[in-house]
């Protein structure tokens, strides 16, 4: 068994490469994905090895990228398109929600849309406006799409391959601030768990903390800090946002009775709202306190010098933990 330590960027790159090796119908397309390897270098080296027909540098037009990918999917290809930054997905929004999401339904299952739309999302990199958004709820709200978020290098490697193998369109969210941050051991011979499953990443008994993408690390840090104060937090990496995998969540809540949800997206009608609703529907009598949400405030994403005040951090998660324990 050989393992190697990789970053999230490397995991995604290796996963894309593996998917392209395994299936000649897999195409990569987007702005600057070829020679440059993408602005985050996720597609580094792929064009060199797979050619310009399979790693396609596109004109600077997001609707055009997604719309032409629809056509390639109809021709039998499996396009993986890169939206360069979260805030630039909106020109493609119509194609995603009206065409990508509905083609299978409209055609009574005759036209499949095996497409992956990769979106680097979230903040924390000191960027200018439109480069730090968290648009996941806008896609999770759309029937016909599946939405997942990876949080670590090993998941990046497996989840991108699983998303590409899916016959349904997948919005694939990548926490951009994690791209080149922490390394993890990858064992390529391992058997990954299914894509649409959430995972308990730290066991605990007092409070359940739900997170995905960039806030998984925040939640784990909070759990570590809390343990020093004698509080035991259970942390669940949701991984899949649509569909939600509520099994591990409900199981946890039935044991802890207390829940804090944390995401970078605005709290109003964010994933936390849906999670709170599902939890109270399914295990009302297990709850010892209201489900609390720690997210981005309901302001536009602020200037980067104060973004750390906008983003949920360890202290705000712990504050919510204290509030739910005090209830």
């Amino acid at each position: 068994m050989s393992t190697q330590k990789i970053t999230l960027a490397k995991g995604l790159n290796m996963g894309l490469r593996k998917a392209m090796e395994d299936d000649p119908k897999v195409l990569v397309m987007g702005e600057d994905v070829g020679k440059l390897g993408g602005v985050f270098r996720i597609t580094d080296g792929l064009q060199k090895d797979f050619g310009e027909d399979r790693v396609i540098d596109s004109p600077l037009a997001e609707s055009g990228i997604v719309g032409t990918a629809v056509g390639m999917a109809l021709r039998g290809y499996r396009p993986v398109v890169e939206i360069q930054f979260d805030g630039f997905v909106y020109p493609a929004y119509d194609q995603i929600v009206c065409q990508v999401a509905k083609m299978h339904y409209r055609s009574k299952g005759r036209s499949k849309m095996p497409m992956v739309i990769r979106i680097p999302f979230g903040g924390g990199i000191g960027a200018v406006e439109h480069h730090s958004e968290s648009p996941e709820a806008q896609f999770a709200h759309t029937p016909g799409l599946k939405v997942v978020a990876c949080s670590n290098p090993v998941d990046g490697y497996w989840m991108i391959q699983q998303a590409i193998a899916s016959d349904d369109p997948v919005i694939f969210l990548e926490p951009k601030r994690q791209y080149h941050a922490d390394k993890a051991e990858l064992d390529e011979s391992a058997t990954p768990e299914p894509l649409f499953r959430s995972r308990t990443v730290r066991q605990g008994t007092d409070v359940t903390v739900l997170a995905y993408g960039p806030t998984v690390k925040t939640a784990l840090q909070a759990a570590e800090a809390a343990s020093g104060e004698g509080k035991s937090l259970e942390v669940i990496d949701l991984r899949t946002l649509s569909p939600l995998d509520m099994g591990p969540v409900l199981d946890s809540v039935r044991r802890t009775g207390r829940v804090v949800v944390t995401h970078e997206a605005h709290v109003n009608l964010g994933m936390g709202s849906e999670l709170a609703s599902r939890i109270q529907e399914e295990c009302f009598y297990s709850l010892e306190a209201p489900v609390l949400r720690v997210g981005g405030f309901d302001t536009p994403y602020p200037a980067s010098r104060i973004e750390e005040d906008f983003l949920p951090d360890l202290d705000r998660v712990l504050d919510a933990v204290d509030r739910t324990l005090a209830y």
Partner: protein
Amino acid sequence: MTHQSEFGPDLAEVFGPSQQDGGPELVQLLTPEGERREHPEFAFDLDDEAIKGFYRDMVLTRRIDTEATALQRHGELGIWAQLLGQEAAQIGAGRALRPQDYVFPTYREHGVAYCRGVDPLNLLGLFRGVDHGAWNPNDNNFGLYTIVIGAQTLHATGYAMGIQRDGAVGTGDPDRDAAVIAHFGDGASSQGDVNEAFIFAASYNAPVVFFCQNNQWAISEPIERQTRIPLYQRALGFGFPGVRVDGNDVLATYAVTKAALQRARDGQGPTFVEAYTYRMGAHTTTDDPTRYRLSDDVEHWKLKDPIARVKAYLTRNGLADDAFFGAVEDEANELGHHLREGCKALPDPKPMDMFAHVYAEEPEELRIQREGFAAYLETFEESHA
């Protein structure tokens, strides 16, 4: 004389009387009076039997349209998008296709659908509200109707990029080389997606023909609201040729589209075809064009009817007799009967059908919702039992 600014022609010149009939660049091979014309670049290379076939195609297409309009008036369809006046543009373009070519239609391409062998009855489903598209797009290489204006032009371009990657362009094998045709209208030419489709197609030299039926109206907005130059001239700015063809002339539309498709199959990239025509009816059956346009214009275009000119040509030259025209009429009557009876017999979907095909792989949470609704419905059946 019209005013000529130092920066180019003004709007009056572009849309004035000289352009009303398409202007000097209009490719026409059969005049409104039914006389053949030669064109230096485009020739109609089929025989008179083919022209009789086109006549039949157009009469049947018009019957599909008038029957569907009548069905809407009788409450059998919720709405119908009429094509009256655009029969030649659609039959000319539809008959220029080869089986391996692929069509991306708007919601008005009933004549093209007919050419591709789609049962016209299948077109009625989405207007009746029983489905969003009844035919299998891959049976006839005819995509589903697209309602968001212009979105399909990008799908067409991407599909053409797929054809390139399959090596089905420029091989010289007439059974292998394929092209895509993207249909849209003058209103769609203002959409971002259409302009992005032009850019992608040009950038990748994709085998796609952009076939614009300029019927002069986008619901109530005249062509002058969409463009200040003739639409076909826009193509040059995107880096590929544009042609304006008489969209009421089935011979010219066929010849121009055929050449454009062949150009695409040969690997020479996209072409813009502007079929210059007129929407004789309303935008849809819910529209009232008397609120925004003059009946004079409609009367002017009646003289250019696409079917009448072919009939005049066939009659004047002794190519068809009353028996032929009568047989076509009989066939149209049969088609009308098929549509009337078939439409009323189209089954309503069952409530539970709304859950079908949302995903290729249904998520558990949707399954639970579906089963919950089924159980809920059953409680009513029990209470009625």
